[in-house]
């Protein structure tokens, strides 16, 4: 049995970590307390390394852990008031909800929030996959920049359709089938056990497997007209389809997967306010480089990488080409969606676009629902 004060210290430390968004499970906390019995408590470095082994589960968490450990160690030697102060501020996730029309909010944020309200309004039950009455052809071909918020149901429906298509990739695992495929000895033998002779053969075939989606969404100023739609699209995609990783970029890259995991769209918007440089300039190449440095492990042959951007890039097109090539080498498919492509007079001549085009498997518009529907047909690997 661990020393009681020690156990309490561990529990408090775990609480501190949780507030800094490291989800420490009770089991881990118990193990940490047990672990301390096996460590030299006088050796700070050893306690640090030990607790890190016990409580951290991925390299990204180390920085947070280090900060907390530093603070906690200091706190333990000083007055408890410090502890209170440190544990005091509530994390961003629990922050009181800002009023919808808070002053000083940027234009697009206000717009997005207003949109969120409507989403909230009809959020009675299951928001996704609910069939809508009818869909006017006008709606399908209308450019998103002229889209209003009340036609989102169709969008959601389409997203569900896209997700279903994505779920049909063949896996190396095999599943039983009626005929054809490889002989399944295990099941054949079982089926014929009582017969003394192999009469009925059983087969198995490759199982279909799910693909992963990585979405990289341009949220720079030039994409403003489309970004509120795209964001909704990302949110919906993430909800019907578990294996989605979403990033936004303009000057920097931000992983927003966790923000989009919120239950309501409104909450998503609130969380996204933390994301900086929404509607700034664009440096696609540098953003992709950052993606390649930190997140390559998310991309493999079963991954479809989708870039949503108009290609207006203020960075170096050569960097863009190099980094995109790097992604292409790893990914199953790279798709570039460009809302401007919907305009018949548009030519992909921006320097960034010109550099990227040869490297993209599929280049398509994403300006209206018809374009998205076409995309759905393209999404099986």
């Amino acid at each position, binding site marked *: 049995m661990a020393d009681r004060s020690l156990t309490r210290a561990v529990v408090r430390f775990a609480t501190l970590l949780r507030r800094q968004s490291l*989800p420490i*499970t009770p*089991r*881990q906390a118990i*193990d940490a307390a*047990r*672990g301390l019995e*096996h*460590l*030299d408590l006088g*050796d700070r*470095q*050893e306690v640090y*390394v*030990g607790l*890190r*082994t*016990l409580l*951290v*589960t*991925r*390299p990204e968490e*180390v920085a947070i852990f280090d900060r907390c450990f530093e603070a906690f160690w200091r706190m333990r030697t000083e007055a408890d008031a410090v502890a209170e102060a440190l544990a005091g501020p509530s994390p961003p996730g629990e922050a009181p909800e800002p009023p919808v029309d808070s002053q000083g909010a940027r234009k697009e944020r206000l717009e997005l929030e207003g949109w969120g309200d409507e989403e909230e309004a009809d959020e009675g039950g299951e928001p996704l996959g609910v069939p809508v009455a009818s869909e006017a052809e006008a709606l399908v071909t209308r450019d998103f920049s002229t889209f209003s918020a009340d036609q989102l149901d169709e969008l959601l429906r389409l997203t569900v359709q896209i997700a279903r298509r994505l779920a049909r990739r063949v*896996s*190396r*695992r095999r599943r039983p089938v009626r005929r054809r495929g490889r002989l399944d*000895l*295990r099941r*054949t*033998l079982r089926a014929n*056990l*009582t017969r*003394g002779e*192999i009469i009925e053969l059983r087969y198995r075939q490759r199982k279909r*497997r799910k693909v992963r989606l990585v979405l990289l969404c341009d949220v720079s100023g030039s994409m403003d007209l489309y970004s509120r739609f795209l964001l909704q699209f990302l949110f919906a995609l993430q909800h019907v389809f578990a294996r989605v990783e979403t990033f936004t970029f303009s000057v920097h890259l931000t992983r927003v997967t966790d923000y989009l995991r919120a239950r309501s769209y409104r909450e998503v918007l609130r969380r996204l306010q933390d994301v900086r440089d929404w509607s700034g300039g664009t440096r696609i190449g540098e953003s992709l480089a950052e993606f390649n440095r930190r997140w390559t*492990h*998310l991309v*493999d042959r079963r991954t479809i990488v989708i870039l949503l951007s108009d290609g207006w890039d203020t960075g170096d097109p050569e960097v863009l080409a190099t980094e995109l090539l*790097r992604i292409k080498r790893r990914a199953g498919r790279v798709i570039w969606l460009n809302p401007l492509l919907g305009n018949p007079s548009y030519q992909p001549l921006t320097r960034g676009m010109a550099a990227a085009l040869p490297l993209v498997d599929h280049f398509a518009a994403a300006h209206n629902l018809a374009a998205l529907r076409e995309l759905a047909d393209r999404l099986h690997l």
Partner: protein
Amino acid sequence: MREEIRKIQALMEAAEYVTDAPVATSVHLALNLRKPLLIEGHAGVGKTEVAKVMARMLETNLIRLQCYEGLDAAAALYEWNYQKQLLHIKLHETAHRAVDQEEHEIFSEPFLLKRPLLQAITQEQSPVLLVDEVDRADEEFEAFMLEIFSDWQVTIPEIGTIKATHPPHVILTSNRTRELSDALRRRCLYLWIDYPGFEKEVAIVERKVPGINARLAREVGRFMESLRRVRLAKVPGVAETLDWATALAGLHADHLDETLVTETLGCVLKDADDIKRFRAEVSKGGLSPFLQASS
């Protein structure tokens, strides 16, 4: 430092593994808390080696489960030897034996193919179970493994439940080609092995490449250190360092120069773009920037 940890460090050193406090502490905790240890790190930093050394240190068996895409329970846990069963039935066809006797016979241990996980729980002494490159297996398999790890028992319908009397020490390694599930992570102790620092790398080279010139070893260490600071597509790991050092020692080199490095570059850099980039760097500024100590 705790005496046990120092002892582990000494034992690992004795087993030809140059270690440091984090590795020794993690192993110490994994042994004492009897929890799986998940080791992540770049390719070639010696993740797998930890398990091997642990087995040598504990003087026990190392059972290795190499993961790959499509790995399933039949390949990881057990499978009946169907071909053998069929042959057996055919051979005794004329004997006219009772069905249940026949069945009992063909579903017994001689017809059972024990795969690594089952092997691991039927040992006389707790073995070290190495689940290598777990990120290559798919998510379904992860869930299956968690189930096994939770109580170390396996039920084979025809034989019954086998419970481990000596649960294995588990080491999992991952190269992060895929993000592992939180469920798995939370059940493991976690160790991130980074590229070694200069001193550690030199120590590793001197330990593993006996007879290497001391100056050469230090230069190799410096070179690798600066090389890893350049942004490369394939950053060389310790495995590359050792290959290279062995090659250089084989050439009886006692220091690094431009020709030597260019000729043996293939041991270290394994990406065409990286090699091109490195050549350009060297032709511009020579080799000396790579041999200077870091600031």
